């Protein structure tokens, strides 16, 4: 019973990895935005990034 489960589970994992690679999935944090106006190309400052309020680390030890 366990053997069958593990075989199915293992091949499902491998299949998922293969599919993820084929489709180009990523684990990085990316935000999708729709309907960006064409004017951004001529006026880049008119676009406000989702991440523009990010607080930068200015540390070091």
């Amino acid at each position, binding site marked *: 019973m366990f053997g069958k489960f593990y075989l199915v589970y293992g091949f499902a994992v491998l299949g998922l*990895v293969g599919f993820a690679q084929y489709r180009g*999935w990523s684990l*990085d944090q990316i935000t999708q935005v729709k309907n960006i106006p064409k004017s951004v190309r001529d006026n*880049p400052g008119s*676009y406000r990034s989702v991440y523009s309020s*990010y607080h930068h680390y200015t540390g*070091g*030890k």
Partner: protein
Amino acid sequence: MSSSTPPLSGPPKPQVTALNCPTCGAAITLRSFEHAITVVCASCHSILDAKDPHLRVLQQFQAIVGEDPPLIPLGTRGKVRGTEFEVIGFQRRNIKSEGIPYDWHEYLLFNPYKGFRYLTEFQGHWNDISICKDLPVVGQGFPATANYLGEIYRHFQTADANTSYVIGEFPWQVRVGEHASVTDYVRPPRVLSAERTPGEVSWSIGEYMYGQDVWKAFHLPGNPPNAIGVYENQPSPMNADIRRAWTVFAVFAILLVGLMACFDMLARKEPILNRAYQLSPGEPRDEASFVTDVFDLNGRTSNLEVLTSSDVNNNWIYLNYALINEDTGKAWDFGREVSFYSGYDSDGSWSEGAKKDTVVIPSVPAGRYYLRIEPEADPRHPHIDYWVTVRRDVPVLEWYGLAFFALLLPPLAVTWRSMSFERSRWSESDHPPTPILQTGND
């Protein structure tokens, strides 16, 4: 035994001897013929000398009122290891551990041509017991071991056993209140037992049986009592699974490496953009954001890697990125920081951060795209050089790491369950495992 009962297998047909108890007059049946040394009257609980023509009374004991009858009634026949045996005797024995008595039951089985063997039952766990054919050799290590027919058995427990109830007939001088020191050595599914009485040591070998198999062998009605806990020689149901799980895991790990090599070879890793830029954060400016030239992404839907590198040193640069499809207006927005700090203190030299950063944008369809980049940096630094490199269709190694751990989970779970099973087994022994978590100062 009634006259209609079919005879046990074998050539001559021995006859059951019918006698009467000299104490109460109840009928007594001798099923093991001349092998019987003592026989117990089920009516008045007199233990009688079966070798005496007058059935001399050896002992009379008071049975507890409401005593549970044997689960397998005397006279029941069943096939054990392919041979038909008849239940001719039953005794209840107990040991005391930390003042608590633990009862187990022994059924004496007889076949006139094969002799005696025993079935024992403790809290729903059964054992098929027979006398050892060879004398085991006990080792001197700790915990002690015993070697029987080339197999090593580990010492499990030594306890004083007391006989509290008997019924039927026995090929030895059975007595209620009789004491013996019993030592068990285990090698699941077998148990090797040494029973010591003054002047005698008898060795027996047992093999674990499931209640359902006993019920089937003796054609007993209903269901056997549920097994409680883990018994000393109970085979672990996970042992076969562990070997299989780790073997299959090894195969899956090899397949995973093969998959990784395959996708690494097939990945196009197509260079799309490679540009150097400079940021002057200290200089006054109207607008820091800019866009790259439009580039074409071809082929099937795939990912896009954006590598940012910079010569920052004890400094940082932050870039708001947006990958924008020129035709559809769809954008992938993300922010990346490149920072690197280093120095020297009382602990020695140190560093943190990195001078490059990689991000992978998932599932980008073919089309015409450009990047909008908005860099930021500490205004106290005059100039920061940075480079942006874009590649299409790159392998993402994190998936393989995740898959490796996902594949590892089932064998780890089975191994953990098996270890828990063994801990339960040995927690009842004279050599309990040390607790995983210790509390207090003990």
